């Protein structure tokens, strides 16, 4: 089984190629190609994961090309961490394929959509299987391409165009960081292989400064991909893509690639205390920062997007606080419940054809399946006990506390409170109360989505509940035991801090839910209570802390300004110099032409003068050949 694991990414690639060829087919049954092939990937991934669970991983490589004596290799590697990722990615991908069959029904580029999904799945699975940094980087970029294509799927919409461009460019900034880190590491280690890098790091062959520098550069890549502060602005905008895409790429898999990267390179980070601290701080700040923005958003997908950013911050925080298992654990559970939430949101949008939560309401009765499933997702993400989110979040908090990062710990608690609040604000506004949407003429009644859409949600709903039991202090720490067999040496020591931590976390989430209930369900507290109390602050939060505007004013304006300046420079200075030379020559020619009086004798005199001068030179120097 393990030897064949390189086939896993190739199934979606095949799907991509086939679907591009059948692009013109009107039949929507082409979707089954994609579903079937990703299904095969899923089956193989589960097989691989089970194989790794029982035994060892595998690593196979061959020479890709050579630079001088150095061989650049390609291959695949299966270890506990990426086997787990394989399952997550192929599972969510498979479910999203299925879901899209219903969601994209009737779109004129139906086949192309599935082709792009295939391309993305290929890249993501390839990324996970990569045994070296270079290969990871290549798939890393291809994943970005997939994301770009899918965000820009509705290419005729200017917003989609802008969002796609923004996503690509913002992540590219991160990618360049990763690139620099990777190349710097190469010259320290002489190889891109994880094994060799870790071995060199372990031997202490790299200076501390270099370690921190490379780790931070690689982290910049993760920041870009995972939408961490300050490169997070593309992720909410990426919601312009179709909702299944948001679920697959911008919730469950691609954005988690940043976390995966840090996890995969964990020995490097472990070797540098400073790098770990930066990771933790960035993660913690992102968590609370994004959560604060999520409080005020009106677009259902944007709320979820900010929540994604915030949860990714959590994962980074965990990794930065030596909570390796906690980070991966949260990645896993988050993939399930966030995909669930997005799919449910897609189902809602599918039903009501709007994304503005203020135009929804009272959908609980109409969407008999979607409603409860969304509730499960919301409860899970809020960290209500016994659901998956509770366990993973608890572990993050515990490891943060155990690592002595108390400030970040309390930030995380507040973020948990906010998470609970905005998730239930969303839930109450969408599913309870009066129906607020105006019925447009000829629009069909709100109805539940077809089973091809609800089935994936049910699967995810079940997983969102049970995934937490992968790693609990009560039943067993399967996940930690499993991950401990990987290349990463897990930090020792008990991460399960004081007993009061789960209590505090539960309290925070329940408080959040309660507050949301009071404001949006019971109306006990006025909705604009906070807005009125802190007008300035809420304004800032509503406008996403003006980060986008800030970038526009500084980076974008600066760059275009510089470019325009460069254009002027090019036209007037560079061209000008040339023009100056040519006009100079022309002037000289004109002066020279005045000497031409057309009389042979004058020319003759000039010629004689020339000869005389030459002769003089020859006479004075004694001649060239003598």
């Amino acid at each position, binding site marked *: 089984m393990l030897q064949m694991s390189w086939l896993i990414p190739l199934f979606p690639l095949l799907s991509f190629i086939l679907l591009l060829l059948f692009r013109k087919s009107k039949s929507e049954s082409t979707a089954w190609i994609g579903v079937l092939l990703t299904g095969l990937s899923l089956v193989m991934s589960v097989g691989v994961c089970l194989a790794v669970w029982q035994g060892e991983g595998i690593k196979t490589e061959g020479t890709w090309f050579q630079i001088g004596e150095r061989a650049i290799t390609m291959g695949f590697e299966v270890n506990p961490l990426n086997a787990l990722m394989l399952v997550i990615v192929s599972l969510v991908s498979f479910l999203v394929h299925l879901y899209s069959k219903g969601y994209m029904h009737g779109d004129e580029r139906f086949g192309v959509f599935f082709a792009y999904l295939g391309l993305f799945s290929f890249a993501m699975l390839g990324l996970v299987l990569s045994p070296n940094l270079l290969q990871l980087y290549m798939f890393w970029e291809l994943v970005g391409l997939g994301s770009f294509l899918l965000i820009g799927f509705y290419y005729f919409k200017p917003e989609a165009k802008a969002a796609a461009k923004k996503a690509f460019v913002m992540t590219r900034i991160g990618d360049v960081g990763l690139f620099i880190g990777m190349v710097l590491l190469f010259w320290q280690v002489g190889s891109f292989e994880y094994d060799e890098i870790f071995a060199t790091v372990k031997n202490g062959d790299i200076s501390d400064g270099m370690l921190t520098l490379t780790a931070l550069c690689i982290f910049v890549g993760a920041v870009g991909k995972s939408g961490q502060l300050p490169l997070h602005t593309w992720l909410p905008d990426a919601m312009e893509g179709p909702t299944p895409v948001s679920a697959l790429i911008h919730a469950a898999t691609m954005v988690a690639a940043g976390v995966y990267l840090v996890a995969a390179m964990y020995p490097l980070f472990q070797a540098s205390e400073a790098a770990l601290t930066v990771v933790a701080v960035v993660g913690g700040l992102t968590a609370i920062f994004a959560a604060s923005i999520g409080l005020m958003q009106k677009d259902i997908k944007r709320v979820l997007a900010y929540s994604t950013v915030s949860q990714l911050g959590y994962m980074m925080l965990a990794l930065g606080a030596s909570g390796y298992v906690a980070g991966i654990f949260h990645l896993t559970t988050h993939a399930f419940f966030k995909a669930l939430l997005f799919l449910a949101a897609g189902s809602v949008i599918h039903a009501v054809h709007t994304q503005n939560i203020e135009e929804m309401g009272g959908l609980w009765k109409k969407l008999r399946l979607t409603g409860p499933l969304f509730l499960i997702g919301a409860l899970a993400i809020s960290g209500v006990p016994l659901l998956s989110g509770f366990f993973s979040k608890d572990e993050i908090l515990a490891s943060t506390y155990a690592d002595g990062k108390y400030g970040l710990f309390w930030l995380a608690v507040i973020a948990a409170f906010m998470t609970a609040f905005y998730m239930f604000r969303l839930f109450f506004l969408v599913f309870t109360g009066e129906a607020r949407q105006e019925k447009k003429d000829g629009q069909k009644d709100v109805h539940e989505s077809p089973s091809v859409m609800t089935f994936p949600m049910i699967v995810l709903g079940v997983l969102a509940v049970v995934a937490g039991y992968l790693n609990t202090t009560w039943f067993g720490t399967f996940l930690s035991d499993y991950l401990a067999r990987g290349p990463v040496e897990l930090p020792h020591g008990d991460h399960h801090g004081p007993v009061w931590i789960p209590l505090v976390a539960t309290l925070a989430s329940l408080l959040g839910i309660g507050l949301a209930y009071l404001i949006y369900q019971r109306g006990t507290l006025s909705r604009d209570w906070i807005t009125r109390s802190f007008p300035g602050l809420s304004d800032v939060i509503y406008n996403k802390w003006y980060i986008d505007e800030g970038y526009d004013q500084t980076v974008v304006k600066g760059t275009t300004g510089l470019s325009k300046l460069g254009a002027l420079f090019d036209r007037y200075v560079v061209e000008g110099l040339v023009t100056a030379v040519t006009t100079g020559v022309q002037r000289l020619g004109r002066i020279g032409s005045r000497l031409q009086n057309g009389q042979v*004798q*004058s020319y003759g*005199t000039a010629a*004689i*003068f020339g*000869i*005389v001068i030459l*002769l*003089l030179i020859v*006479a004075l120097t004694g001649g060239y050949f003598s």
Partner: protein
Amino acid sequence: MTGEMIAFFLLALTAITGGVLLINLTNVVHMVVALIFTFIAIAGIYITLSAEFVAVVQVLIYSGAITIIMLFGIMLTRHQEKEKRAPRLKMMLTGLAIGLFFLIMYGKIKDLNFGQQDAGLHIDNTKKIGVELYSHYVIPFELTSVLLLVALIGSIILAKREDDEKEAKK
């Protein structure tokens, strides 16, 4: 001072005098006549250089043919007999250039001596030239004839009246 030396000096003096007169006279016809002296004196110089045949040719062609042609030229184009002097500046500039040229060349040739000379050139001079011309230099010699022919035809066509063409056109 050998006789040869004296002959050389006399001839050289004549030649240079002719040249100077060419520069200084104002009447065009006089100038040409002055130059005849130069040409004949050069023929004399050739004889001192044991080149009798060349000397004879020089007299025939230069002193005879070319001078006559030039005189014809002057008569055919008689425009103003007196030659006006060129502007002073131009004269000075040209004079300066040529003076410099003279000085440089003078410096280079004044001590030139290869130490060898052929004393037997005058023996059967014409015969030798004839043999050489018809053996070693036969191709250039024939080419010369072509050149002369071309020159002949060319001059006739150039000097032909254009009215003929105009009439032909009519």
